[in-house]
């Protein structure tokens, strides 16, 4: 295919991605090296606010931005190099923690806490999603043809439901006096507070993610199972391969590209996990990297937002994801070289 033709085909798609992804990304990249500040002045202001009947007036010094002749705040933009990255990583505190030998206090620093959890979350759920997805696919493939349709339908439910709603539906089962917690309390006659324990929240968040994504893995694997070469299977049987050996040496290799595909998608999605933190209100115990970025971007009541640090944290998240994906990307590159022409 000639370049011109290719350009016509991919043009609209590439244009949209450039406009709405690459362009914002470039500006995020630039902002992570800049700090834009308003020029502020200190003024004495008298503010009168209501009590219930009377009014209280206080005179206090306030810092307010200087406005230009159009009434817009004047700002300065400065190149600060890696300062914002250093602020996100808080290397000084990390250094101090290492020097004093208290390693655990590193994990009290937001970025490292988020990184620790995000990595654990991603790497623990990955095999669970693939394993559970494969198990369901094999079991469904094994089930009577007449009920397969219904089972596939039920299995897909956790995947199609709106993520926030799904997370809340599980949260309500466990938090406070949720019915599952109440049942467990009844069984062991103790008082259980799921949301008071970091590890319990962590497990619940992982459970939710596996519950939500395993159906996706399942449906892909199930489709893959439909194309397993029956001849190979039969010859494996003739060679006396056991059931497990057939799975191990015929089915799994056949599904390997799919396992890679699921792994790829899952690594990306889990590494930028976000809904779980909101859905399970886990901020006190566990935070993720995307939540950290989001939190820096959220304006406080006074309208301040830490755009430079948020940009730096977003770039760090991206770097992390690219590192995680490198092994899979190299494989894709080899395939591409092998399959081209």
């Amino acid at each position, binding site marked *: *295919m000639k*370049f011109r*033709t*290719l350009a016509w*085909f*991919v043009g609209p*798609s*590439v244009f*949209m*991605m450039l406009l*709405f*992804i690459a362009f*914002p*990304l470039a*500006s995020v990249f630039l902002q992570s090296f800049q700090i834009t500040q308003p020029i502020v002045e200190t003024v004495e202001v008298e503010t009168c606010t209501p009590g219930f009947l009377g009014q209280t007036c206080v005179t206090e010094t306030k810092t307010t931005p200087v406005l230009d002749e159009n009434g817009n705040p004047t700002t300065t933009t400065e190149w600060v190099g890696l300062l914002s990255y250093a602020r996100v990583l808080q290397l000084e505190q990390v250094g101090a923690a290492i020097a004093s030998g208290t390693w655990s206090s590193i994990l009290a620093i937001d970025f490292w806490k988020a990184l620790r959890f995000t990595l654990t979350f991603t790497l623990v759920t990955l095999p669970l999603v693939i394993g559970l997805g494969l198990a*369901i696919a*094999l*079991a469904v493939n*094994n089930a009577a043809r007449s009920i397969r349709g219904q089972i*596939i339908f*039920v*299995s*897909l*439910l*956790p*995947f*199609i*439901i*709106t*993520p926030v*709603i799904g997370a*809340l*539906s599980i949260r*309500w*089962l466990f938090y406070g006096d*949720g*019915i599952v917690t109440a049942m467990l309390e009844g069984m062991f006659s103790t008082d259980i507070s799921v949301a008071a324990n970091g590890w319990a929240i962590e497990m619940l968040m992982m459970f939710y993610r596996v519950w939500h994504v395993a159906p996706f893995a399942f*449906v*892909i694997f199930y*489709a893959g199972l439909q*194309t397993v070469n029956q001849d190979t*299977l039969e010859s494996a*049987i003739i060679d006396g391969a056991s059931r497990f050996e057939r799975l191990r040496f015929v089915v799994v290799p056949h599904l390997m590209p799919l396992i890679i595909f699921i792994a790829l998608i899952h690594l*990306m999605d889990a590494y*930028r996990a*976000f809904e779980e933190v909101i859905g399970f209100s886990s901020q006190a115990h566990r935070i993720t*990297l*995307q939540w950290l*970025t*989001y939190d820096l*971007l959220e304006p406080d009541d006074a309208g301040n937002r830490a755009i430079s640090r*948020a940009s730096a944290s*977003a770039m760090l998240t*991206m770097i992390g*994801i*690219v590192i995680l994906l490198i092994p899979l*990307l190299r494989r894709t*590159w080899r395939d*591409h070289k092998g399959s*081209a022409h």
Partner: protein
Amino acid sequence: MATPKALQQPASLRLASASFLAFWCLIAAFPIFWIAVMSFKSPVDAFSANPLNVVFGPTTRADGKGLSIIDIVIGLVVLIAAVRLAFTQLPKWVGRLSPPGMAIIGWLVGAAAYAIAFLIVFFGILPVFLGGLNAVTGPLGAPVLGLTTEHYYAVWIENGFWRNFQNSLIVTAGVVTISLTVGTLAGYGLARSGSNLAFWILIIALIFRALPHSVLVAGYLPVFINSAEILRPILGENAPTLYGQPLAVIAVLVAINQPFTIWMLRSFFQNIPNELDEAARVDGCTHFQAFRWVIMPVMWPGVITTGLFSFLLAYNDLLVTSLLLDAQNQTMVPAIAGYFNRETTTTDQVEAVAAAVSITAPLFLLVMIFQRQIVSGLTAGAVKG
């Protein structure tokens, strides 16, 4: 189909496999089933710690809202009849009435019509009929199971949730159509080009997919709000404010969804033999003509599957829609999230649950209709790597 003897499984394995599947289905469906039950109860019952209270709803029943034995029996009969009808008669009607080649649209229209007819019968006619029946049957007509549809009424009629439903339809339809049009072209182009450029487009798209969305979205907001000012030098006085426009949100969602779409469709097109369009080109077709006349007729399974994923993304999106749409154009998910803000009451929460359950219903229908297409689409395309 006869199973070869060696493939027959020992009873223990079959039992293990069946019970595993039953267990999984329970876990998969229970949380969703449970919020569905909650949505029909008064707030006190819905958040009760005792599961029996949630199921039987004593407080709801005490308020005089409930189902009698007669209600339950007749309701179940109607429900089962409706499901049977859906699986036996509906396909026939659709087959007979939809014009050839338009089976998919026929199915969509048929399913929607059926759903509406069901809603009218089940929630419109049946309650009136049963109300009369309950009044004359004495103890059999007394409520035993607390159940109320007031939250659904509050959400859909009083709070005007149907407007959000409309907006969701617009956004979702827009995203699916544009995403597939743009993505199909790109997917085909990338599948048929072995150049390094194509490869790098794919890899960069993959990295784009990995971006944390909150960063992108926060970048859009100021630009969208000030777009009238920014675009005025170019477009003059007609420069639009993009903030709040469904079209702008559609464009953003399409872009965010492009990486996944082109990857799926590319692997799908790779499995359509190259010889097919090469033969067409030998006959003098251009690439576009080959695409139009040879590829388009056989690409539908893959497109439907990919379309479903686009649909899910657009339908379920919260981050983009909540920030970039104003109240008039708000879709359903941010509207529901709005019930859970700092200033909610328990009633708001149960109403949110009712809203959440009702937005799941269209997803149900969709998956029911397209279930086989999903599997066959995946079998034909993406899953071959």
